[in-house]
C-alpha cells in the first residue's frame, strides 16, 4: 500500500520550487541535482566519505528553530527531501557575488583542482551559520571565531594539505543581520511531507505517524527503513541494492523523544548523532568523547542512533559505548512495545533480536552514570575512520576498590560484546596498576578478532589490553 500524495513532490532548491519529476525512488539528491544542471556538487566516492557532494538542508535546530545542516547528497534519496529546502554551492553565491565563505576560500588558496571545493564550501557554510558558534580563544581544532574544524572532517581534499582551508574557515566573521540564510534560521524548517512515490516496481513512502510505519512493517517483509540513509545510500550506490519499498522515518515525532533524568536518559531512535551531541551538551561524558570520533560531521548530521544499532554491525561505534552505559532499547511493533537490554540485543553477524516487523523506538540510558568513563577508538585515521577496535568504559571505584565495571567492545567478534571476563577480573579488586595489568592480559584475550585490511588480529588483541592500561594511566595521570 502507498499513501496517495495530494500534491506533486517537490523540493525548494536555492529558493526555487522544483518538482521532483519522473524519478526513480532510488535517485540520490546528487544525481537529481546534477540532472537539473546544478553540477557544483560532485561525486567523489558515492559513500559519504569525501564530502564533494555536500549540500545544505533546512533542519530543526538545537540553538535556533532552523539549522542549515550539511549532508552528503550522494547518500540521501531525493524522495526523502520532498517538501524540504536545499541550498547548493551555486545558491550560496556567484562568481560576481561571492558568499563570504566562498570569498575566503578563493582568496586564500583554498581551492586547487576545485573538485572538492563546492562540498567544502557547503560544509563550511553550515558551520558559518551554526547558531551555537561563538567567538572564543580557539585551540588546535577551533578557530578564534568558534569555527569547529570537525565540521569539515567529512570533506577530503587531495591537493591543498588543508592549511589554507583552515585559514579560510578561521577568517570568517559572523553572518550579517540581513543575510537571507541567517534570517531563515529564525523560523521553523519545513514540516515533513507525507510522501508516497511509486516508480516502476519500487515505492518510497514517508508515513505521517509511527502507526503508519508499523502497519507497513507488519504487512511488507521487503520493507527497508531509512532515516539518514548513511548506510542504505552505500548499499544502493556501491552494492547495487534496490529495495522495493523504502519507508522514511527520520522526522516522526514519536521517534524523536529527548529527555534527561531523573532516572534515565531517553533518546529517540531517529535523533541524529549531531542532535544528540548538541542536546546532551556533554552531560553524558562517555558519549561526548564518542561523538567527535563517530564518522564525520556530515555523517552525524544524517545518521541516527537508531540506525547505528539497527544495522547490527559489529563495528558500529555507538554499541561499545552504549554497552558500557548499560543501555536498553525500546522495540515497537503493531504487537506492542518491549524493552531489550542492549547486551542481549545482538545475536550474530548483523543479526539481532529485533523482529522484521519491529522498529527501534527509543534508547534508554540509566542514571546515575558511572564516575569513570572513556571511549577508545583504534583506527588508522583520527577523523572519520572505521574502528579496528572500539572500547567503551564505565567504571565505579569506591574506596579504592572497583565496585562496578562495564566494558563494551566493538570490532573483536561478529557482534559488539561486553568484556565479561575482564569485568570479572576487575570487580572487587583494588584499582591498582597490578590489578589493571592482570585484567589487561584477560582483556587481550577477549573476543575473536580477525585479520583484515584495517588491522591484524594480533594488533586488535594487543589494543584491547593496551586500552585498559591507557584507561588506567590516563585516569591516574590526569
Amino acid at each position: 500500500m502507498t499513501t496517495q500524495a495530494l500534491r506533486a513532490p517537490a523540493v525548494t532548491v536555492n529558493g526555487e520550487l522544483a518538482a521532483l519529476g519522473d524519478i526513480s525512488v532510488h535517485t540520490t539528491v546528487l544525481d537529481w541535482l546534477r540532472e537539473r544542471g546544478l553540477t557544483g556538487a560532485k561525486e567523489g566516492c558515492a559513500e559519504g566519505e569525501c564530502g564533494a557532494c555536500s549540500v545544505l538542508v533546512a533542519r530543526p535546530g538545537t540553538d535556533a528553530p532552523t539549522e542549515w545542516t550539511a549532508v552528503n547528497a550522494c547518500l540521501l534519496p531525493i524522495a526523502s527531501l520532498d517538501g524540504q529546502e536545499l541550498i547548493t554551492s551555486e545558491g550560496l553565491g556567484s562568481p560576481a557575488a561571492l558568499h563570504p565563505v566562498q570569498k575566503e576560500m578563493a582568496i586564500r588558496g583554498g581551492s586547487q583542482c576545485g573538485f572538492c571545493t563546492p562540498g567544502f564550501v557547503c560544509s563550511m557554510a553550515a558551520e558559518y551559520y551554526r547558531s551555537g558558534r561563538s567567538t572564543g580563544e580557539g585551540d588546535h581544532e577551533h578557530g578564534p571565531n568558534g569555527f569547529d574544524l570537525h565540521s569539515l572532517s567529512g570533506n577530503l581534499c587531495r591537493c591543498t594539505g588543508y592549511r589554507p582551508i583552515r585559514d579560510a574557515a578561521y577568517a570568517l566573521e559572523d553572518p550579517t543581520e540581513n543575510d537571507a540564510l541567517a534570517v531563515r534560521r529564525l523560523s521553523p524548517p519545513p514540516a515533513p511531507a507525507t510522501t508516497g512515490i511509486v516508480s516502476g516496481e519500487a515505492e518510497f513512502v514517508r508515513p505521517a505517524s509511527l502507526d503508519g510505519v508499523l502497519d507497513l512493517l507488519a504487512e511488507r517483509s521487503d520493507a527497508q527503513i531509512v532515516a539518514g540513509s548513511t548506510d542504505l545510500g552505500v548499499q544502493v550506490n556501491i552494492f547495487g541494492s534496490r529495495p522495493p519499498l523504502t519507508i522514511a522515518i527520520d522526522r516522526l515525532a514519536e521517534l524523536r523523544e529527548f529527555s534527561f533524568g531523573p532516572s534515565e536518559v531517553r533518546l529517540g531512535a531517529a535523533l541524529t548523532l549531531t542532535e544528540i551531541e548538541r542536546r546532551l551538551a556533554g552531560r553524558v561524558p562517555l558519549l561526548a568523547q564518542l561523538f567527535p570520533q563517530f564518522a564525520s560531521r556530515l555523517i552525524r548530521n544524517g545518521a541516527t542512533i537508531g540506525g547505528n544499532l539497527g544495522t547490527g554491525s559489529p563495528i558500529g561505534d555507538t554499541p561499545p559505548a552504549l554497552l558500557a552505559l548499560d543501555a536498553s532499547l525500546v522495540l515497537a511493533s503493531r504487537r506492542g512495545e518491549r524493552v531489550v537490554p542492549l547486551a542481549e540485543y545482538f545475536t550474530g553477524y548483523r543479526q539481532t533480536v529485533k523482529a522484521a516487523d519491529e522498529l527501534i523506538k527509543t534508547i534508554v540510558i540509566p542514571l546515575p552514570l558511572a564516575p569513570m568513563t572513556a571511549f577508545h577508538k583504534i583506527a588508522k585515521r583520527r577523523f572519520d575512520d572505521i574502528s579496528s577496535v572500539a572500547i567503551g568504559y564505565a567504571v565505579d571505584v569506591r574506596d579504592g576498590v572497583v565496585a562496578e565495571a562495564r566494558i563494551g567492545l566493538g570490532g573483536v567478534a561478529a557482534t559488539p560484546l561486553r568484556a565479561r571476563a575482564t569485568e570479572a577480573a576487575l570487580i572487587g579488586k583494588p584499582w591498582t596498576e597490578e590489578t589493571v595489568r592482570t585484567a589487561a592480559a584477560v582483556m587481550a584475550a577477549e573476543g575473536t578478532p580477525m585479520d583484515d585490511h584495517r588491522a591484524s588480529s594480533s594488533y586488535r588483541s594487543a589494543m584491547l589490553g593496551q586500552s585498559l592500561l591507557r584507561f588506567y594511566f590516563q585516569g591516574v595521570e590526569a
Partner: protein
Amino acid sequence: MSSLSERPLQPVVGVPMPHESAALHVTGTALYTDDLVLRTKDVLHAWPVQSPHAHARVTALRVKPAYDVPGVVRVLTADDVPGVNDAGVKHDEPLFPGEVMFNGHAVCWVLGDTLEAARLGALAVEVEYEPLPSLVTVREAIDAGSFQGIGRHLERGDVEGALASAAHVFSGEFEFAGQEHFYLETHAALAHVDESEQIFVQSSTQHPSETQEIVAHVLGLASHAVTVQCLRMGGGFGGKEMQPHGFAAIAALGATLTGRPVRLRLNRTQDMTMSGKRHGFHSKWTVGFDSTGRLMALDATLTADGGWSLDLSEPVLARAMCHIDNAYEIPHVRVDGQIAKTNKTSQTAFRGFGGPQGMLVIEDILGRCAPLLGYDALELRRLNFYQPGDATPYGQPVRHADRLESCWSQVIDGGDVAARLAALEAFNATHEHVKRGLAMTPVKFGISFNLTAFNQAGALVHVYKDGSVLINHGGTEMGQGLHTKMLQVAATTLGVPFARVRLAPTRTDKVPNTSATAASSGADLNGAAIKNACEQIRERLTQVAGGRLGISPSDVRFVDGVVRGLSGDGVPWEEIVAAAYMQRVQLWAAGFYRTEGLHWDANAMRGEPFKYFAYGVAASEVEVDGFTGSYTLRRVDIVHDVGDSLSPLIDIGQIEGGFVQGAGWLTLEDLRWDESTGDRRGRLATQAASTYKLPSFSEMPEVFNVRLLEKAHEDGAVYGSKAVGEPPLMLAFSVREALRHAAAAFGPPGTSVDLPSPATPEAVYWALEGARGGVSWSG
C-alpha cells in the same frame, strides 16, 4: 642572467595570486568533463564488465543477454575495434583482453541510455573464464622470475673495493607500498562525432596528445581526425598521464559505432580497481660508511612492482635509480633495477615518478644506520650532503649543491630546532607512555623528463584588435595552478595587466604534439613557449611603437598596459595594437621551446638528463602514543627552493599539498591486495574511500610553516623560477623519520628501529614495541 630568466619592470610573475578559476571553483560553476554530460543531448553511458579473477583466459563471452535489458544500446567488444586493440604505446595493453591480467580488468563495455541500464546490462553479460596461475606480490614475481621491460644498471666507482675497506657495512631489505592517486575526480571521457566525422573527445587527461594518438590508433584513423580537449581536471597527480587513453578510446569507439555521444565516467570503485597506482618497490641493499660517518658505497637492487603491463614503469624505474642518492655524495655506487610483472593494475606515474621510491631507500638506510653508527640522524644526513663540485652517480654535476646547506640551516634557525630538540628530550624523559620525535630530511630532485625528446612545448598567443590577449598552450590544468602561472607569464612578457589575458582550454587542434603535463615541467616548458610567442608579438609591436613614439625601438618598454620610452608618458597598449593591425602587422604567434643542454644515454645510465635540481628541507615533529602507536604531526617547518617564484601563493600551495600527500603515502595510505589463495585472490581489498584513507584535516600539521628559499634565481628556466609540482612530496620523509625517532625513544639510547612503509599506527606500535624490547601488558 639569461634572457629566459630575466624579469622586466613591474612583472606580473612573482605576484601572489589565487588560482585563476578560484571564483568558479568555490561557486560550483567550474566545469569538469563529466559536468558536460548534462549539457549534451542523447548521451549514452558506459559500464564495464570486470574480471573476478586475477589471471584467466576468457573462454566465452556472451553479450546477447545484455541486449535484453531495457535501455541497453550496444555492447563493445574486441570485434568492434577497427584499428589496433590496444590502449597503450607499448602494445602490451589490449583494450579488450582475451586474457584478463588482474582482478577488475574490463573484458567489455556496455552502453545504455541510462547509467542504470548500462549497469544492469553489464550484469547480464555472460563471461566464462579459465583461471590461470597468478602472481600478486612483488616477492612472488621475483621468486618466479616474472619481469617485464628492460632492466637497468647504474654504476660508478669500485663498489666491491669500497665495501671491503669501509669501516661499517650494513645490509638490509626493504619493501614498501605504492599509493592510490585518489584524485577527487575519477577518470572521465565524453566523445562525439561531428558532421565531418571528426572525433571530439573531452577527456580528463594530463596528456591530450597521447590520448589523441591512442584514440586514433584504436579507431584506425590519422591523428588529424581526432581532437582531444581537457577543460581542467579534478586532480591528476600522474594518474592521468597514461591511464585516460583507453577510457577515452572506449568512449570514442562507442560514439563512432552508435552515432551518439558516449560518456564514460568511472565510479570510485571502478577507478580504484582498474587504474594504475604508484609503484610499490622491493629493495635489497648493502651500504658502507667510513669511520667518520661518510657514505662510501651503496650496492642496491630495486624491483618496481609494475603490475600487469609496462605503462610508464621503465622511466619510473630510471628516475628511481637516478634518485637513490637523494642529497648525498656516495662515491661508489651500483644500482640494478628491474620491473616485476604481477597480476595487478598497471602501475603508473605518480607525483615524483619513481624519485620518491629511490630516495626512500637511502633515507631509510640513513634512518636505520644512524644509531648503529652512533650518530644522530640529523648529523649523519648533513655531513653526507653533496658539496659544490660533486657529481651524481650518473655523471651530472650537482649545480647549486650549496642550497642544501642553506635550506637546512634556515630550517634549523627558523624552526627553532635546537631549542625544540632540547625540549623534546626533556618531554621524553618525563613521559613514559608518549614520546616525541623530530627529524629533518633534505630533497634534491632532478627537473626535466629523463627522455630528452619530451622536453619541448608549444603555445599559441593571439592579440585581438581591441588589445585583449588569448593564450593557449600544451599544458593541462589539474589544480597545480599552471594556467594561473601562464597568464602571469603572458601578462609579464607583453607588459599588460593580468586581466587583459584570457586562457582557452587545452586542446590538440590548437597546439599539437605536446608532452604530458608531468615531471613538474608544465610551467618551465609551456611558460617558455608562451614567453617565446609573446616576445615575437612584442618585437613586432616594438617596431610599431618606435615609429609612433618617435623613439628607437630598442628604447620601447611595455609596462602595465602602457607602451613607452625610457621616459615620458607613452601610449596605451590598445592604441599600439590597433595601429599594428592597420599596418598589417601579425598580431598572433606560435611559440616553441626546447630545453637546452640535456643529454641522456638510457642504456649506459649516464648523462645530464636534468636542467637543474630543486632543493628543499623539512623538519617534522611528531608525538606517538605508546599504547596504540597512533600519532599526531605537531609541527612542520619547510624551506623550499622554487627559484624566483612565478606565483608564490600557488607555489606554497604546491609545497603544502605535496607534503601532506607524501605524508599520506608514508604513514596512512594502505593499499591492500588479497594475497590469499582464495576466491578473491588479487582483489584490491582497499577499493573505497572508507577503506583506503587519505589524509584528512586530522593529518594537517598543527603548525605548518612553509618558506620559499630566497635569492634562488634559476638561470635556466622561465623568469628565474623552478618547478614545484613533485619535489615537495618528498619532504614528507621527515615525518616518517620523526616517527622512527619517537619509536626509538621508547627503547634504550641507540635503538635502531625498522619501520614499515606505510607507517600506520599499527606499524608504529609494533616498531615501538620492538624498541621497548617486547614489553607487553604483563611485563
